[in-house]
């Protein structure tokens, strides 16, 4: 049985069926991501004045890697340009050109996910440490030359570690939102290339030790939820686009118009995924 309207538009909608289908799907996706954006903004505006962890209910402003996030934004914008070029190449009946553009698009998707994985790993090995004298620091520590992931105070105690050599963060300039001046000593430290202070902390003096994971702060909960959900969409899109590039090319020989329409539908999904990031990046990284 032939599926109707895969190439020619239906008279009532003026569109071929797959295009109607993808737009209905994207409408449901807008509602999904819209709910998370609303949740993020509510958490952000109801947070107390001041920076976490100095203020317990404050917001952990500037803890994300903005240069890396900016680079990832450029990667996704480039991939949207190449997916359109790939579609245009099919309209020009140029399959080798289509394949080259698609390869670049899939490479961008994998690059984005690779960079995101690096960012996640950096967060899972980043700790907030509260000591019994009420002080709190953030930073990394090494055990046997490795940065441990997801450790808690119980993990440290179970390994009979008595002292931790912690690379305590000197707040970077991104921790100070627009309109707020960076204190002179912090400014000077970074100008001298000093981004951490090394400090030895006795384990017996540690009150709590938590990695930057969802349960540590609502910011991390919503950040990981939104970016992981977005990452799943990037992975899904990359798999579909890779399928059209490597495995599903038989359709191009049998029915080039239908194949071109499928690429358009894949391109629409890809643009949506990239558009979500365009909103996600400034909201999560800069605000």
């Amino acid at each position, binding site marked *: 049985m032939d599926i109707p309207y895969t190439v020619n538009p239906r008279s009532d909608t*003026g*569109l071929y069926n797959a*295009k109607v289908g993808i*737009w209905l799907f994207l409408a449901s996706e807008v509602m999904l991501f819209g709910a998370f954006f609303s949740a993020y903004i509510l958490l952000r505006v109801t947070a107390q004045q001041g920076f976490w962890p100095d203020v317990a209910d404050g917001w952990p402003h500037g803890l994300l890697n903005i240069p890396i996030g*900016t680079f990832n*934004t*450029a990667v996704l*914008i480039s991939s*949207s*340009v190449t997916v*359109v070029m790939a*579609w*245009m190449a099919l*309209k020009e009946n140029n399959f080798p050109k289509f394949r080259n553009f698609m390869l670049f698009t899939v490479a961008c998707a994998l690059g984005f996910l690779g960079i995101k994985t690096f960012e996640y790993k950096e967060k899972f090995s980043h700790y907030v440490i509260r000591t019994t004298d009420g002080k709190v620091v953030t930073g990394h520590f090494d055990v046997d030359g490795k940065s441990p992931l997801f450790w808690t105070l119980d993990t440290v105690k179970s390994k009979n570690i008595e002292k931790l050599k912690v690379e305590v963060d000197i707040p970077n*300039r991104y921790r*100070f939102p*627009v*309109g*707020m*001046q*960076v204190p002179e000593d912090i*400014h000077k430290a970074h100008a001298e290339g000093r981004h951490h202070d090394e400090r030895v902390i006795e384990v017996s003096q540690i009150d709590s030790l938590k990695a930057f994971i969802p349960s540590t702060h609502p910011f991390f909960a919503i950040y990981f939820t939104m970016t992981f959900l977005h990452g799943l969409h990037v992975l899904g899109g990359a798999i579909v686009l890779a399928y059209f590039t490597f495995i599903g090319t038989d359709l191009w020989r049998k029915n080039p118009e239908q194949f071109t329409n499928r690429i*358009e539908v894949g*391109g*629409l999904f890809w*643009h*949506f995924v*990239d*558009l979500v990031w*365009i909103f996600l*990046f*400034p909201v999560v990284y*800069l605000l």
Partner: protein
Amino acid sequence: MSLKTFHIVFVTVSVLLMLVIAAWNFGNYRDNGTQADLTWGVVSVIAAVGLLIYGKIFLRKFKNVSYL
């Protein structure tokens, strides 16, 4: 809405993002005078202009493709 139309929307939003990033960097430069903020602000403005030029070329190249 065709991929062509969605791409135009996407490029428009990307231009706006670049301008937001530029404003954010210039704001940081105003507060702290860090040279890197000024440089990134200028780079963001150049990226916004580059995307606008790209958008114009794209519209010319895709003039025969439907918006629907």
